[in-house]
């Protein structure tokens, strides 16, 4: 809802994402804050920021697939892994530049995702959830059982640093700019996708796929497209991950990670790109806090054992998913929208 006195006088204005002067200012200030981060933040903060930005790309992809098109996808980490392996292998075996490998990684993950999107044409609900869990297991099984000269098997793949006209992108700060630029392009693209013809088809299919089919939407193709786009984002995120960690292993992309991505969009709010970003920020923050505080608690209370970080991470993740599904199934973004509309129309109730 717009503040009072702001009206859209044309269709173009109605579709605008940034609607008021203050929103333009706030967006520019936020971007400046992001771009200048290395100047005021410590390398540790920047490293956390890198992980957050990559997660943001992957979670936004999942938001399009699950939040907008309503297709439960529990294989997002596997799709990310496909991207990471593609980029890692192309970079280490064929010395390709990251300018090529990152889009190729996205495409190969998109292809893998598309395969599972095709199954979504026939099945839905938790049958689909099971199939995407199977994607996760297939990914693991394939990587570990193929000859280790192909994909490194359980040893993983070491990835050379990305180089840009002779500059090695190996420090936290340079990686930060690489990831930030990709994140901005992809997230801006996501805002475009969801308000385009495809995005409207996604929402129609999510709300009721039988009704959407009657209205003339090709439901099977829409579902497959949703998986394709979601997996593309995951693939690009995976490629950036490969360049950041400089090592790709199968243990980095487990079902547990997939569920973390789902938790992010649940906490932020289903069906909102901004919500996905908020969810990423909150979940990654708390993860970081648990990882930092956990060892201290383990030292102070020794009988709990050394597994406290892992087990409390589990309890946090499971608890937060269940809590949000029960108490606030529409996520924080929904709560924020209520607050926003109530202060905009203040002092009137509606």
């Amino acid at each position: 809802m717009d503040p009072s006195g702001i009206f859209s006088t044309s269709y173009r204005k109605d579709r605008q994402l940034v609607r008021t002067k203050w929103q333009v200012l706030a967006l520019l200030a936020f971007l400046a804050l992001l771009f200048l981060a290395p100047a005021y933040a410590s390398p540790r903060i920047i490293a956390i920021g890198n992980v957050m930005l990559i997660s943001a790309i992957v979670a936004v992809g999942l938001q399009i697939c699950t939040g907008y098109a309503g297709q439960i996808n529990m294989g997002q980490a596997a799709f990310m892994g496909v991207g990471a392996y593609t980029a890692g292998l192309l970079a280490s075996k064929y010395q390709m530049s990251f300018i090529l490998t990152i889009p190729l990684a996205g495409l190969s993950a998109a292809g893998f995702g598309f395969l599972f999107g095709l199954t979504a044409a026939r099945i839905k609900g938790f049958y689909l959830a099971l199939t995407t869990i199977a994607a996760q297991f297939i990914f693991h099984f394939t990587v570990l059982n193929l000859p280790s000269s192909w994909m490194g098997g359980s040893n993983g793949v070491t990835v050379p640093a990305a180089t840009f006209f002779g500059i090695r992108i190996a420090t936290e700060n340079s990686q930060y700019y690489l990831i930030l630029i990709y994140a901005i392009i992809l997230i801006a693209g996501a805002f475009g996708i969801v308000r385009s013809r495809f995005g409207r088809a996604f929402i129609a299919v999510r709300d009721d796929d039988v009704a959407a089919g009657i209205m003339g939407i090709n439901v099977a193709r829409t579902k497959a497209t949703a998986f394709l786009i979601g997996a593309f984002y995951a693939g690009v995120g995976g490629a950036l991950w490969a360049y950041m960690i400089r090592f790709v292993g199968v243990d980095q992309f487990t079902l547990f990670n997939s569920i973390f991505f789902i938790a992010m969009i649940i906490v932020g709010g289903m069906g909102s790109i901004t919500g996905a970003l908020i969810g990423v920020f909150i979940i990654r923050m708390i993860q970081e806090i648990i990882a930092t505080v956990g060892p201290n608690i383990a030292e102070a209370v020794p009988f709990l054992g050394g597994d406290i970080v892992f087990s409390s991470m589990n309890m946090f993740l499971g608890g937060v998913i269940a809590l949000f599904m029960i108490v606030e199934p529409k996520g924080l973004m929904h709560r924020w929208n209520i607050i926003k509309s109530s202060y905009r129309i203040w002092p009137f109730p509606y």
Partner: protein
Amino acid sequence: MDFLNYVINGALIGLLYALIAMGFVVIYRASKVFNFAQGELVILGGFIVWYTSFELGLSLWLSIPISLVASALAGYLIERIFLTKLIGESVFSMVMVTIGLLIFLRGLILLVFGPAVRPFPIVFPLRPLFIGELLIPMNLLIGGGITIVCAVGLSWFFNKTRPGLRMTAVAEDHVVASSMGISVKHSIAAAWVIGAVLSTMGAIIFLSGKSLTFLASDIGFAALPVALFAGLESIGGLVLAGIIVGVAQGLATAYLDPIIGGSIGSVMPFIIMLGILLIRPTGLFGWRTIERV
């Protein structure tokens, strides 16, 4: 003779899977919730048995009934805390809550009991049964019998008795069931109690005389293909589906593993599961539903 041995052992393991899968099906059959946390319920039951028999030092005659009651209570509590509020919600919420529950329980069990390997009481005789050259593990043989008894009993309960039919109506549709005057709440609570008790029985058969760690919960995922193959609403079908999946797994382990290598035997159930999902998602005996707008 080897062949017969593989078939019989495979079938018995399949029956164990069927017992675990019965937990899924009972909960689904009475509440329309697909419980991903079944494997966690199994180890929860296992840890309760371990606690009552080793830590408290009770004899098995006491500890097993107490464990069954305790796990029934745990099932009821889980339902109260996590699922009562979700009646009539979307499939996505249900799936995510049970996945949240899976991860939460795993963390809780790890936090309370730790990653240490624990002994599990020997409930069934360790000596296998010899018939000629056939070698049949005692726990699986008795377990197979229990599975068949449970399957017959529960499918009679759900298809013939009034409370069972009431729960079946809940599985059809929450809103319709409650408008017919059926308490959806009670039905779901009863389902979780039965599901938790079945999981504990599964844990006793599976773990008898073995060691217990939190990794044993993987059997929950191994039982998934059986539940899907039978169709999520069919309890009697579980026996057949369990035997087919178990035999396929046993034969694959025996004859395909030496050729292909890797662990094709352990993946076999999942290959079957993918096939079912793609060809006939409702399984052998599941309900076919017609969708309306």
